[in-house]
């Protein structure tokens, strides 16, 4: 004889350790198994109740599933109830056992007892599988007309489940909607509104117009609610049935969207809901706010007249003025909804929103930050970023990452000048350098590079140098300098240090006078310091600081105006770092010292990088990258390093660059900058780029006769070392695979797809369309099908017509996300009309896994 449920629960509660509890539950589970095996009918009820308790605590209970079914089949109501309760708690729609219960449920649906019917409906609504839903749909539909309101409302919600799980049998429920919405009972009305909403969501095109006919009915219900025509039992704080009002307003929103006539029909009512609810007195209750909130949302979504919009926006003021945190949170949500419709109205509340970013409550802060992000434009960018920057100093750690990300995105899009951009991101790096994303740093450097303006270069050198120097030696020095800052400083000083005066030679970076003008000598001293201490930098980029530093030194020492004074010093550093314990630094030092023996090649190799073109990450995440052809050996190197593909991989910060002059060290730096470390080269498996074996040849050719064998080896080593360096990369730096595939090519029309895999496993596909025919192509459409388990997200194409003789002029991006790791495959349908003849063409094609590299 087993113990009683209460005793068991008491026993579990008395356990002092988790181990004790586990042992007790295991003992009880064993007893239950035995009882189940012995068909202990007398205690089944109690045993299943114990199972539910165990399940809630997280212990396995699958062995008792059959017992639930047996209880359901019992005649006694008490047994049935426990049976159905355990069914909805212990089982779920994926379990095959569930199929066995369909018959019991079907007979219970026809029971004379309304509570039995209710239990069955409730279980169907909770765990009904698609098959069950299909089998029981007609029964449930019949119950929608039941005499009992209790059954009607439960049948409504069971229907919601059926509509969700088995969309093919929904038609019959549509007919019941009008009578449900005319029901006198409050619960049936709420449930009926939810059923109508679900039907709308299931077949928007077909069902919404049919349900739209009910708009006058819905308006009438709302009207009578306001006139307190309904039972006061459902009132909350004196507001008549807020739950029903909210449900109906939501239904109106779906029905009024994009339909002028329905919008017109409901607009008077919406206005009176707003004024009535507001009129309930000065201290509005939460329930009143929830109605207003829903009502304003509806007004903003439908095709409302401007007067109504003004009314809705004015109520926003009332929300924002409230001191209650819940209301403030909701009002921020509401503003976020309004931004899409009427940004000017929301701008008026900007200062309140900015205050909310500094709120003590994380939920409110996050909401407000998103809203600020939506509100920023060119005119208010500098004030808003200033506010956010000030706040960054005091923000708590868990919020910093969000804030930093948004700040960087904001300035990258709206900074009034590059100098402002540099100053802002520099401050962000100083303040929260370990939170800054790599691509944010890349975007900054790309923007500096793209400016092509010496004064910007000088400003950037000064700003970054000062910030970095302060981190090392300033009054408020940091224990660890942010790696992002160190990398960015080295890169900018290395590239553009030649715009600085040479200044007085400095033996030690410490000697620099705080706040002074940066000189090339001071820059070299600081970079030397970073070479020596790069390892101590913080953040994901900290690892790379010394790599960037060593390259920067070599670059500086090769500039015409600096070479005289710096070359000796840099060569001394290189000689020292040849013995560095950091493999990458050691390898580069060896290579660079070799290069220093060949003046011509070295100068070309360490030239400034060509200005990068900035692709705004918000508007164009991925673009088809075209490789500008370069002359001679340079092209070979560019090709070899796959400059274009690297950019494609990076995919977020920097768009197409012109790798024309990307030679040797320069290209290397490019790879570094864009790929976050040479590891990308190791990851280049794409057929489009040169095979990995190629490196030595073109480089040797580039070096020409002047290059003795050791140099070539050295340079080969440069690439070789990239491979060996790859395993050390932190996970976030894992190289992404990519591939360029000709997905479709027929009659001069082609679709080229550039696959690139992001660190999170998703694959971004940039398709570009080529048209080699003499005629323009109109209404060009690309359709893509993917196998099960892969979800596809397509952006609109940049244009639907493709000009004659163009290649890559029109692009389209899509994103593939795999739920399970399986090979990618795409089926493609291309349709277009030929402009000159008017002929419509439709073609199919396929991209198999075999066409893609294994890494994808």
């Amino acid at each position, binding site marked *: 004889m087993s113990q009683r449920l*209460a005793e068991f629960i008491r026993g579990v509660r008395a356990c002092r350790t988790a181990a004790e509890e586990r042992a007790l539950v295991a003992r009880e589970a064993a007893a239950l198994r035995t009882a189940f095996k012995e068909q202990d009918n007398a205690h089944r009820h109690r045993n299943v*109740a114990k199972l*539910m308790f165990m399940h*809630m*605590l*997280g212990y396995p*209970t699958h062995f008792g599933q059959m017992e639930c079914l047996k209880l359901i089949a019992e*005649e*006694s109501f*008490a047994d049935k*109830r426990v049976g159905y*309760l355990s069914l*909805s*708690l212990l089982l*779920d*729609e*994926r379990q095959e056992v569930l199929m066995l219960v369909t018959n019991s449920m079907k007979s219970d649906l026809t029971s004379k*007892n*309304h*509570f*039995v019917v*209710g239990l069955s*409906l*409730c279980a169907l*609504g*909770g765990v009904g599988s698609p098959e069950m839903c299909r089998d029981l749909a007609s029964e449930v539909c019949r119950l929608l007309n039941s005499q009992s*309101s209790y*059954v009607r*409302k*439960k049948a409504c*919600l*069971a229907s*919601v*489940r059926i509509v969700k799980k088995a969309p093919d049998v929904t038609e019959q429920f549509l007919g019941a909607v009008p009578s449900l919405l005319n029901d006198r009972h*409050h*619960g049936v009305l*709420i*449930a009926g509104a*939810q059923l109508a909403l679900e039907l709308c969501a299931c077949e928007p095109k077909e069902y919404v117009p049919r349900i739209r006919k009910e708009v006058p009915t819905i308006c009438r219900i709302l009207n009578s609610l306001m006139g307190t025509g309904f*039972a006061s*039992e459902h009132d*909350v704080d004196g507001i008549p*049935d*807020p*739950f029903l009002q*909210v449900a109906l307003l*939501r239904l109106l929103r779906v029905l009024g969207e994009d339909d002028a006539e329905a919008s017109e029909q409901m607009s008077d009512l919406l206005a009176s809901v707003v004024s009535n609810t507001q009129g309930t007195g000065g201290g509005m209750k*939460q*329930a009143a*706010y*929830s109605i207003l909130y829903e009502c304003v949302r509806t007004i903003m979504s439908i095709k409302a007249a401007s007067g109504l919009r003004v009314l809705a926006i004015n109520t926003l003021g009332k929300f924002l003025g409230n001191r209650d*945190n*819940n209301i403030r*949170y*909701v009002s921020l949500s509401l503003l976020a909804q309004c931004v899409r419709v009427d940004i000017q109205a929301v701008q008026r509340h900007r200062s309140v929103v900015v205050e909310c970013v500094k709120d*003590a*409550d*994380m*939920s*409110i802060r996050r909401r407000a930050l998103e809203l600020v992000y939506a509100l920023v434009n060119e005119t208010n960018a500098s004030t808003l970023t200033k506010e956010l920057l000030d706040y960054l100093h005091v923000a708590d750690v868990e919020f910093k990452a969000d804030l930093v990300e948004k700040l960087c995105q904001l300035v990258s899009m709206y900074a009034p000048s590059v100098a402002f951009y540099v100053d802002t991101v520099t401050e962000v790096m100083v303040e929260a350098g370990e939170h800054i994303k790599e691509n944010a740093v890349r975007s900054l450097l790309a923007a500096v590079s793209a400016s092509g303006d010496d004064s910007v270069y000088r400003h950037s050198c000064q700003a970054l140098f000062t910030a970095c120097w302060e981190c090392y030696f300033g009054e408020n020095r940091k224990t660890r300098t942010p790696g992002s800052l160190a990398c960015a400083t080295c890169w900018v000083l290395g590239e553009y240090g030649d715009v600085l005066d040479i200044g007085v030679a400095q033996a030690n970076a410490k000697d620099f006078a705080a706040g002074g003008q940066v000189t090339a000598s001071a820059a070299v001293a600081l970079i030397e310091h970073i070479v020596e201490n790069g390892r101590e930098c913080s953040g994901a980029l900290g690892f790379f600081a010394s790599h960037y530093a060593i390259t920067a030194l070599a670059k500086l020492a090769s500039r015409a105006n600096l070479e005289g004074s710096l070359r000796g010093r840099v060569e001394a550093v290189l000689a020292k770092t040849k013995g560095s314990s950091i493999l990458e630094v050691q390898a580069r030092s060896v290579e660079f010292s070799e290069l220093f023996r060949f003046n011509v090649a070295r100068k070309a190799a360490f030239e400034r990088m060509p200005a990068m073109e900035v692709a705004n990450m918000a508007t164009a995440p991925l673009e088809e990258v075209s490789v500008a052809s370069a002359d001679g050996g340079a092209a070979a190197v560019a090709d070899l390093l796959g400059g274009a593909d690297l950019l494609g991989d990076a995919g977020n910060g920097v768009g197409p660059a012109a790798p024309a002059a990307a030679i040797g060290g320069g290209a290397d730096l490019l790879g570094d900058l864009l790929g976050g470390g040479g590891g990308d080269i190791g990851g280049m498996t794409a057929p489009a780029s040169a095979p990995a074996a190629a490196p030595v040849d073109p480089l040797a050719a580039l070096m020409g006769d002047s290059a003795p064998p050791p140099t070539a080896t050295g340079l080969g080593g440069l690439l070789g070392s990239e491979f060996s360096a790859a395993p050390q990369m932190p996970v976030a730096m894992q190289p992404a695979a990519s591939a360029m595939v000709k997905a479709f090519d027929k009659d001069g029309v082609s679709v080229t797809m550039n696959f690139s895999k992001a660190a999170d496993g998703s694959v971004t596909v940039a398709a570009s369309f080529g048209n080699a025919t003499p005629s323009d192509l109109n209404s060009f459409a690309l359709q893509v099908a993917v196998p099960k388990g892969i979800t596809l997200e397509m952006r609109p194409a940049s244009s639907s017509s493709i000009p004659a003789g163009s290649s890559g002029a029109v692009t389209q991006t899509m994103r593939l996300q795999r739920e399970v790791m399986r090979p990618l495959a795409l089926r493609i349908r291309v349709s277009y009309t030929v402009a000159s003849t008017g002929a419509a063409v439709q073609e199919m094609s396929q991209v198999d896994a075999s066409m893609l590299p294994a890494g994808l």
Partner: protein
Amino acid sequence: MIKCFIVVNNTGVPRLTKFYEHCTPERQQELVRNVFEALHSRADGLCNFVEDAKRFGKGVKLIYRHFATLYFAALVDENESELGILDLIHVFVETLDSCFENVCELDLVFNSGKAYAVLDEIIMAGAVIETSSQAVLRRVDEIARAERFGVGIAHAK
């Protein structure tokens, strides 16, 4: 829709859980833990909504109320009205309170069957079905009577 309703105490032990969307038992336990962690770290007096894409998924909101030793929490999608759910939790607790006369944690532990009956009358299939605490009480009483006297009791109106 309401994805799940969870009652968890101040030490993280679940007292009542109901999931309206398919969820493996492991995921259920994980969600309970996540809810508790998210709520436990929140000070009093903050707003009653938490968004945390990492813990609960994108677009899912945690709406909760804290009463004595228990957190009552619901995870909902974007379509639900936050303030509405907050009121709903209030209705649930109010009903439990009249059901058990000053409800406390132990009532839920030892009478979970009744607590679930109350919940099932208020939320069904992830949607609100009844919001009047008196109406719910009447039904729960009738159900209790039906359990005691067997099938064949007065029909609900």
